[in-house]
């Protein structure tokens, strides 16, 4: 057969590779800054854009979508061409994809710091950026499938299945979770409310970990590990089981992020069961990776690429054992809301994602620049800095997590809570400091890599178009009697559809009952929509990223009820677009903050938290006291809420601002009684209105019930 000559496009791989390195450093710097802010709140500079509540989403988005995202694209654009023996389908689409993605990242960085956020973790970006992501993702898909359809290799190697599953599932997750109704340019409200919003969000959040941070990286593992070790993967059969079992089971496990919350019990149990089953495919994948190196461990000693991969795969195994264990209700009861979870995700992030990305870069750069790595010794030093960094990061946070939980849950013999919440914070500050040292070491390692790669690049000569040759696929393949799976794997679109069906099933089973069966969210009659001022205040709460440190979800435990008040009910959140349950308690839960302190306490606390709680690590929010509330947006906000089913009376949008002003003046008057003079039109007044409302509706019902009993 006639052999065709063609060349692989390395230029696009280079571009994505550079972006990976740049955003690794940017994302880690943001993370380090956020980590330092926790014990040194003054490093927030008392500026709105640089407070923890905005830097933390910047860090998570930069690491997930900018660093790991670009790493995925680097690896996919390199390996897909070679696995398909074909150049990328369209150079133009490749570059639209590249520049589109970088623009999205730039827009994300600017808007997150400006406080434009949807308030849903890992999906904070506002609606115009969500749309841009969708479009660029489609461009990537067309380019990927175009390449696959033009391939000169009959079979689709397992790495490509992982890429296909990633593409289709991320598309589905992103679209479903991003349903939101725009209020204005850069402001929207989630279509879902309360429990349903939480369910969708954690179905998304969990599977963003699965299908953005795991499956594409596994695809990279199945390509680059055999490459680097120069031997096929240990068991290709196992890789097939790994693939199907992983994508099938992963999608169901989201509710394990919501154990003991107001989510219906059956949904929580479903999440737990599937999370436990996840151990098997995850460990199958890990063992498959490690066994690939059987008899080649001498190479691991020599080759920094393999060193990074071994630790990465081990961290994958550790994180995927820990994940299912954390989804057991009794372990979740201890770990949730604590720093344990932060340690857990960083085993995955620093160990698995980071180290796989480094391994890939150390492999690719010498190959594409046709040279040797500048210094193996520096790479080995990077490896050790990174590894020690991970340990110094994770161990103190595990310790901190246990300490927090123990302190939260300890009662005195008299039956009182033994510790103030603040004591649990100040007690673990040494752990927070050590953690940031670990993160600093890890970042230092990454900087060593930058230097090493720059030197390598300077010494080599870039091969922009790598020549290759292969025979084209015969036009008519006889199918005859062959196995169905080979039939599937020759047909990428069939594989796409089957993958989609497999991941849709889990989502559908989880969501349909929660959306359609009313008894899952019992109505509480005293729960009423927010007043216009409270709604505006709530948007400030969302804007400042309060949910990054404060939960609004009291679990039905003795200590939480004793500390915060009545546990949270599903029916309390029916008007919460978006839900603000949070996932971490660096500060105390706020679900029953309403009425707990006078207005003046909140006013002073926002100006300088240490004035009200000495030793507090909360940043100050002085601009809330100065900035005027934007009331022009009120009518539009009310109208969108009405569209979403919040029962404001018809025409309320026209009178909402009168209502708002009246309530604001009442609060200003109360503040005045406490000797605080403030105009009623400041943002702080709206925030106080919201905070004083949170969690109080249910008390009205209890009062009503009590009233009834007395009357009888």
């Amino acid at each position: 057969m006639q052999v065709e000559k063609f060349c692989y496009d390395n230029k696009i791989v280079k571009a994505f590779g550079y972006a990976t390195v740049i955003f690794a450093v940017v994302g880690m710097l943001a993370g380090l800054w956020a980590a330092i802010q926790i014990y040194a709140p003054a490093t927030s500079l008392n500026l709105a854009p640089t407070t923890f509540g905005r830097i933390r989403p910047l860090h998570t988005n930069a690491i997930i979508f900018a660093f790991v995202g670009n790493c995925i694209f680097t690896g996919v654009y390199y390996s897909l061409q070679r696995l398909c023996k074909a150049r990328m389908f369209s150079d133009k689409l490749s570059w639209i994809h590249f520049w589109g993605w970088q623009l999205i990242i730039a827009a994300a960085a600017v808007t997150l710091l400006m406080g434009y956020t949807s308030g849903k973790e890992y999906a904070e970006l506002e609606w115009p950026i969500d749309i841009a992501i969708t479009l660029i993702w489609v461009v990537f898909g067309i380019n990927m499938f175009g390449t696959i359809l033009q391939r000169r290799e009959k079979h689709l190697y397992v790495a490509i299945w992982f890429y296909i599953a990633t593409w289709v599932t991320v598309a589905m997750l992103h679209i479903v979770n991003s349903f939101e109704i725009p209020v204005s340019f850069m402001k929207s409200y989630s279509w879902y409310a309360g429990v349903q919003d939480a369910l969708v969000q954690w179905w998304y959040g969990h599977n963003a970990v699965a299908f953005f941070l795991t499956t594409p990286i596994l695809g990279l593992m199945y390509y680059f590990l055999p490459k680097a070790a120069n031997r096929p993967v240990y068991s290709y059969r196992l890789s097939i089981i790994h693939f199907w079992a992983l994508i099938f089971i992963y999608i169901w496990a989201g509710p394990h992020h919501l154990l003991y919350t107001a989510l219906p019990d059956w949904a929580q149990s479903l999440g737990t069961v599937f999370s436990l089953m996840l151990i098997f495919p995850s460990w199958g994948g890990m063992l498959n990776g490690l066994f690939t190196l059987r008899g080649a461990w001498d190479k691991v000693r020599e080759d920094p690429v393999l060193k990074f991969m071994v630790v990465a795969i081990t961290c994958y195994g550790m994180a995927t054992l820990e994940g299912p264990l954390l989804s057991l209700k009794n372990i979740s009861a201890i770990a949730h809301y604590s720093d344990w979870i932060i340690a857990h995700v960083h085993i995955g992030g620093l160990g698995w994602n980071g180290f796989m990305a480094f391994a890939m870069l150390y492999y690719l750069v010498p190959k594409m620049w046709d040279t040797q790595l500048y210094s193996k010794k520096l790479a080995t030093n990077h490896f050790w800095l990174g590894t020690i960094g991970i340990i110094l990061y994770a161990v103190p946070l595990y310790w901190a997590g246990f300490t927090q939980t123990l302190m939260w849950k300890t009662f005195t013999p008299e039956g009182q809570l033994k510790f103030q919440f603040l004591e649990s914070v100040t007690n673990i500050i040494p752990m927070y400091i050590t953690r940031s040292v670990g993160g600093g070491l890890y970042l230092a390692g990454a900087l060593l890599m930058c230097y090493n790669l720059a030197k390598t690049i300077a010494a080599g000569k870039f091969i922009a178009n790598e020549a290759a040759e292969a025979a084209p696929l015969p036009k008519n393949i006889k199918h005859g009697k062959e196995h169905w799976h080979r039939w599937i794997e020759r047909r990428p679109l069939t594989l796409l559809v089957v993958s989609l069906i497999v991941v849709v099933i889990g989502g559908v089973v989880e969501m349909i009952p929660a959306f359609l069966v009313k008894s899952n969210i019992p109505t509480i009659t005293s729960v009423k929509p927010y007043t216009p001022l409270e709604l505006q205040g709530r948007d400030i709460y969302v804007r400042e990223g309060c949910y990054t440190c404060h939960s609004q979800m009291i679990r039905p435990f003795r200590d939480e009820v004793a500390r915060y008040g009545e546990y949270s009910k599903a029916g309390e959140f029916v008007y919460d677009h978006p839900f603000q349950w949070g996932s971490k308690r660096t500060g105390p839960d706020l679900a029953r903050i309403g009425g707990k302190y006078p207005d003046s306490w909140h006013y002073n606390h926002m100006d300088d938290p240490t004035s009200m709680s000495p030793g507090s690590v909360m940043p100050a929010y002085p601009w809330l006291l100065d900035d005027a509330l934007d009331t022009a947006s009120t009518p539009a906000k009310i109208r969108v809420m009405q569209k979403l089913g919040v029962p404001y009376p018809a025409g309320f949008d026209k009178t909402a601002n009168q209502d708002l002003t009246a309530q604001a003046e009442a609060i200003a008057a109360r503040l005045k009684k406490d000797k605080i003079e403030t105009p009623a039109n400041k943002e702080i007044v709206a925030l106080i209105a919201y905070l004083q409302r949170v969690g109080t509706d249910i008390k009205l019902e209890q009062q009503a019930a009590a009233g009834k009993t007395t009357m009888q």
Partner: protein
Amino acid sequence: MKFINYLEKIGGVDILGLTSFGIFFIFFIVMLTWVFKTDKRKIEEISRIPLDNPEQ
């Protein structure tokens, strides 16, 4: 536009659980059957795809 509780109740909601378990069970049986019955040489051939590069 509302996305809340169109139905008060799903008739026979149990069927949802049973069906999903059924799909799950069948899916894995079929996959495992295939994996263990397939031709070893073919599998070996596919697993070498990344290595069949001239650059090696």
